[in-house]
């Protein structure tokens, strides 16, 4: 395959004496869905936090678009076109979906009002509504607080917000965890649609059939390092579970 969009090499992350990552590597290409799987405590969430700028790795290198990068904050990642759907959603429950979608990226009114920091709420509502329709988040109204929405709708808003801004890569930490059957399918459709636009999608999930159905590739973490890589078409649930539990080891085992 061509040059990877994102390549992490030998990342380490220590929390005090706890070694959450012990030389983990990871690769993602533009226009593919790659799932990151592993047992609880394997370091998936830590790896995503390091790759999205939330945490700084203790050691190792990150290469993005052929350039070595250091992410000091989520803003650095965002500037590169990297977005994240966090497991805990990270929405502001008292703000409406449009405000949440544009949080940190508010549209200001043109002219002097904009210089004073006055928001263009109408433009934001309009654009947000379009995005939500596009990404299959069906909301009865765009101006009620997120807290008044159902869990599934909240999740849809969080997913739609991230994919709306991700121009290169989007991390999704268990995006379907709280969803019903229909909404789950919708999120998977969104993932494929985003992939078809040329964006790399990194999916973290515990649901193996889901991983196999939506992914192009699968990378397996175990005890803080990558232990296996598969093409989703050529593997099986048994093989994935084997790699996760240590029954099967492909690489980096040296």
């Amino acid at each position, binding site marked *: 395959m061509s040059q990877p969009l994102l390549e992490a090499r030998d990342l380490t992350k220590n929390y005090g004496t706890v070694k959450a990552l012990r030389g983990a590597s990871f690769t993602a290409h533009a226009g593919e869905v790659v799932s990151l799987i592993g047992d609880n405590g394997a370091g998936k969430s830590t790896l995503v936090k390091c790759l999205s700028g*939330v945490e700084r790795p203790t050691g190792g290198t990150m290469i993005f678009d052929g350039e070595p990068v250091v992410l000091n*904050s*989520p*803003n650095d990642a*965002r500037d590169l076109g990297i977005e*994240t759907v*966090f497991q*805990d*959603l*990270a*929405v*502001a*429950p*008292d*703000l409406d979906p*449009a*405000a949440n979608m544009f*949080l*940190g*990226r*508010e549209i*200001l009114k043109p002219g002097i009002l904009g210089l*004073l*920091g*006055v*928001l263009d*709420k*109408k433009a934001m*509502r*309009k654009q*947000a*509504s*379009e995005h939500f*329709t*596009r990404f299959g988040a069906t*909301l*009865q*109204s*765009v*101006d*009620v*607080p997120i*807290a*008044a*929405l*159902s*869990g599934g709708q909240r999740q849809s808003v969080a997913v739609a917000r991230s994919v709306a801004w991700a121009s290169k890569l989007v991390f999704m930490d268990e995006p379907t965890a709280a969803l019903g059957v229909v909404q789950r399918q919708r999120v998977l459709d969104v993932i494929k*649609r985003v992939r078809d*636009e040329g964006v790399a999608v990194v999916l973290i999930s515990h649901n193996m059939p889901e991983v196999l159905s939506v992914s192009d590739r699968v990378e397996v973490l175990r005890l803080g390092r990558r232990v296996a890589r598969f093409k989703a078409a050529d593997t099986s649930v048994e093989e994935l579970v084997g790699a996760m539990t240590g029954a099967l080891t492909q690489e980096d085992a040296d």
Partner: protein
Amino acid sequence: MTDETTTMSSLPDEQRTPLLKRLTGANTLWIGLVLLGLVAAFGAIRPDAVFQVTTLQFLLAETAVLLVLSVGMTFVIITSGIDLSVGSVLVFASVSSAMAMNAVSGGDATNAGWGVIAFGLLVAVVSGAVWGLLNGLLISRAKIPALIVTLGSFGAAQGAALLLNNGSNLSGIPDRLNRTFGSGTYLGIPNIVIVAAVVTALGALLLSTTRFGRYTYAVGSNEEAARRVGISVRGHLTKVYLLAGTLAGLAGFMGNAFFRVAVVTGHETDNLNAIAAVVLGGTSIFGGMGSVLGTVFGVFIPAVLEKGLVIIGVKEFWQPIAVAIVLVAAVWLDQTRRRARNRR
């Protein structure tokens, strides 16, 4: 994504909740009705005494200072913080401003001109801002709970104000200041009220229409979410406490103009009155929700109760009890609404 453009024409305004429903769903409307009801009730009992120009003028002027404090407090409480220091900061700003005006007028500023008055305003606002900045930095950088930080500055600012003039009130407020901003009126409205109204209107616009206001709600609603989208939460919290302190400084200057003396006592419960006003006005003590308009209603409910009970001949000692009942009921209502909303 070409085949998706068909849905682009969806009209967001059709999805908007109708105006009437939005209004009736808001706490602010009900609080406003309570205030209106109180005025109507007192007015019906003693129309001659209640709807007198001087009664209303007094009511408004006395409430103006508390209103300015409460506007700052609204921002603080929406970030789910608290500022107990506002009354002490007011006293400190009031004393230091009076001292500064006296100092540049050779000891007595009673006959001083506009230059000295402007200097006094600057000193009041800056000394308020410094306390606010100190609060903000300790809360956002040192991560000390706002309750503790502002409890500390509540005591420290009061103590510092007493130290400045050895614990006594300070006279020598320029006559010109008192005549214009203290007791002057424009079209029957006391000038001090106009100042407070302008501050309140600017505060309301800042909160409801600007990015600063939006971040205030976001930080109070979910600090972690705000941080993850790249909002500088520490910087924003600092600015909010700075704003509250600055407004307390301005309130101190307004007090000087109104009372013609920098008073060192009588502001010990300003903080609680401001908090009560904000919460009465429908701002959630848990952060993320609230409005300046609600705070305006919340400031006037206790004030109207106090004046009204006196006018209709009920012992004024009933007033704190009545306010307490309304206050607890307001918070209870807020919690019930939140719980109902979050149960989904």
